[in-house]
């Protein structure tokens, strides 16, 4: 097999990707099927059987109120995946038009829009998310909308960079000269290419959002108790850390594992979608260049 044909053939997906995808799919499916597959009611307490280790009846043990940890994690997945979906939707809905407009009309409007995004990015993500959640009120939707708002300027800047690079290409100029209406030009010809790095970045933000969502729930700004949530349950377990230190493992490992899986998918996406180098010259760590 010569080098050219090897370059043309797409590399087989690494096994790590398949593990990550499988884990996430299983978790998502279990969250969706929670009412049928969770062994217990996640809110049902048994104060006579609290803070127990794994048994055949409770595979991951019971928490400080005697609730089944496994059932709470399965149900908590609904809030976790749902919350991340809300957050990414807000970030994309706000950030992509923001960056597109700034990139396509960069002179005045774009400058103003980017200065606004600079100001927002200057604040630490979690601090700003906590402040916005505090103003909007605690809860899954409000906290995730807050994180989405905080991530939107990052999406906007990335989108703008992509649009700026693509808008100067010959094919865009040709389309313009042939009289294609600018919004159509933007949507049909510019965005599909300009958004490639945004898609890759979104996987990173997805992983980050799981972490931030867990942190906000840990701080009591996510779903209200006793609603199951991974971060809230981690907080409950942490409050018992001196008496039962192993309690933090199930929610902690789950949260960490999900983030690793998302990042693994992001890595593969980056490898597949990034680089304007010839395929034969690509390495795993190529940066995104459109």
């Amino acid at each position, binding site marked *: 097999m010569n080098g050219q044909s090897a370059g043309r053939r797409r590399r087989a997906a690494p096994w790590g990707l398949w593990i990550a995808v499988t884990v996430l799919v299983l978790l998502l499916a279990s969250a969706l099927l929670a009412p049928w597959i969770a062994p217990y009611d996640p809110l*049902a307490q048994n*104060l006579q059987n609290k803070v127990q280790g794994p048994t055949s009846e409770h595979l991951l043990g019971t928490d400080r109120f005697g609730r089944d940890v496994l059932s709470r994690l399965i149900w908590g997945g609904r809030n976790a995946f749902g919350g991340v979906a809300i957050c990414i939707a807000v970030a994309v809905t706000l950030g992509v038009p923001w960056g597109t407009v700034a990139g396509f009309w960069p002179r005045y409007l774009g400058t103003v829009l980017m200065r606004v995004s600079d100001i927002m990015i200057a604040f630490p993500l979690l601090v700003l998310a906590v402040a916005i959640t505090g103003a909007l009120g605690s809860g899954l939707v409000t906290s995730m909308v807050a994180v989405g708002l905080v991530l939107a300027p990052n999406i906007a800047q990335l989108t703008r960079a992509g649009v700026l690079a693509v808008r100067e290409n010959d094919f865009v100029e040709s389309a313009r000269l042939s009289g294609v209406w600018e919004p159509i030009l933007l949507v049909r010809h510019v965005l599909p290419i300009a958004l490639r790095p945004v898609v890759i970045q979104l996987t990173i933000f997805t992983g980050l959002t799981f972490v931030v969502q867990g942190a906000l729930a840990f701080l009591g700004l996510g779903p209200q*108790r*006793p609603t199951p949530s991974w971060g809230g349950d981690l907080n409950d377990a942490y409050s018992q850390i*001196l008496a*039962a230190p192993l309690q933090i493992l199930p929610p902690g490992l789950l949260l960490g594992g999900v983030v690793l899986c998302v990042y693994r998918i992001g890595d593969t996406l980056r490898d597949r979608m990034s680089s304007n180098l010839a395929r034969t010259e690509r390495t795993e760590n190529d940066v995104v260049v459109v």
Partner: protein
Amino acid sequence: MKPRHRHLRTSAFAALVALAPLATACGTDSTDESQTTLRTIQGLTPSQFDPCGSPNGSETAYMAAIYAPLIRTAPDTGELSPGIATDWEFSNELQTLTLTLQTGLRFQDGTTLDAEAAKRSIEQCLDMETQRIPGLESISAEGEDTLVFDTSTPNSGLPALLGSRLGMLASPTAREERGEEFGAEPVGAGPFQLDEFVPGSSISLTSWDEYQEAGLPEAKVDRIESEIISDPSAQEAALTGGQADFGWRLDYSMPSSLEGTGIHVEHNLGVSMSDLNIDRSQGPLQDKKIRQALSYAIDREALAQANTSGLSDVGAVQPYPPGHRLHFDELDDTYEHDPDKARELLDEAGHPDGLTLRGVSLDAPSFVNNGVVISEQLAEVGIEVDFEAKDVAEASKDFYVNHEYDLISTGMNSGPDWLSIYRRILTTESSGNSGNVPVPGGEEALERASSASSDAELEEALKEADEVIQEELPIIPLYYSPTVSAWGDNVTGGEESVALNGEADLTALGLR
């Protein structure tokens, strides 16, 4: 036995972060070896130190060291003894209280502490409207050493009231000069002065050399440096690592985690109580039977055990805990856990299929956790309620002012001033009475207590007041909150410093 790992990386990191300021404090101390510095930790955060400012309870220990009391209330028993006042007596059928004051005392800013200054200080306090004296007609200073209170109704609880925050005399001159800053720059006549206050972080007191004994003992150490540490692993590390000599209001896990470490740990049932406050001005809880159904549906023992890490299983159905002179054993069985009785009462009230209530809880973990357990217990009898966690200001506004909720998971400190606590529960105009709805028999019960001319009469009257509380349930008591204190071998007066209200008597503490 559950496995324990004290040296978890998370614990160590949390401890390291939390102890960094302590390490600095120790370094400062070592530069002057002639000074004795007691290093303490506490789990709650004071916000100010004016006895007439907004209280959150955690400032009491410091105020009790900064301010000399008009009448001293023994921290461990609640008994009254002379403070700035050496003697007091009632006349005019308990409507006039005359106090004889020590002479020659001064505040820490040099202001003379005589009857006129005491009068001004108390009047300033009353003007701030965080406290009041029921039926007060006048306060008068007669000469240098006589202070007279006249009330329109009998007021046997007045000495106890003057033995609490109201009687912590602040320099009227300093309070006038400093205005709103006074809470952060307090001036009293006690054995300690506030040296530094970093909100949410640390408090330093230094002994006042010119203190003249007025109820409180002289300072036994030159300096007290206190750090606010709420993380249990950091609390454990500070005490076992020698960075703190004494700690109070510690996490409930401390008694088990400090076992075998050589640190003395004491936990007691104090007069702090968790409870549900009820809005009787609107919604289903206007009906007494539903309130009683709630009370029967709650398994207080299980609730106490679950939320105190097993330190207590004593449910509360009256303000004072077992062992206190104002606790009445014969009233203990009133609301034994009885779900069937709860369902029966709901049925009688016209809710055979149950009902839904709106709950809010203060966002401190103990109150949130109470809400979690209670909502599950109430669900068993068909009452649906979820408690929304909010900070104190928002929860209070939404519950007491906006009437957005039927009940609130909160707590109160019953001591040692009985008049304040019974007024709060039973009177119509009380700030704790959402909607200011009269409690049938409440005012009368308080009147009888206020007219009591002996301890026996007072106890009988307060027992009747407890019966009114149990019948009408303006609040639903839950359990007495244990208090946890701990100290090292180098500390003297540890046991004496454990106060009924869960605070520490810092003036009792010394170093070997």
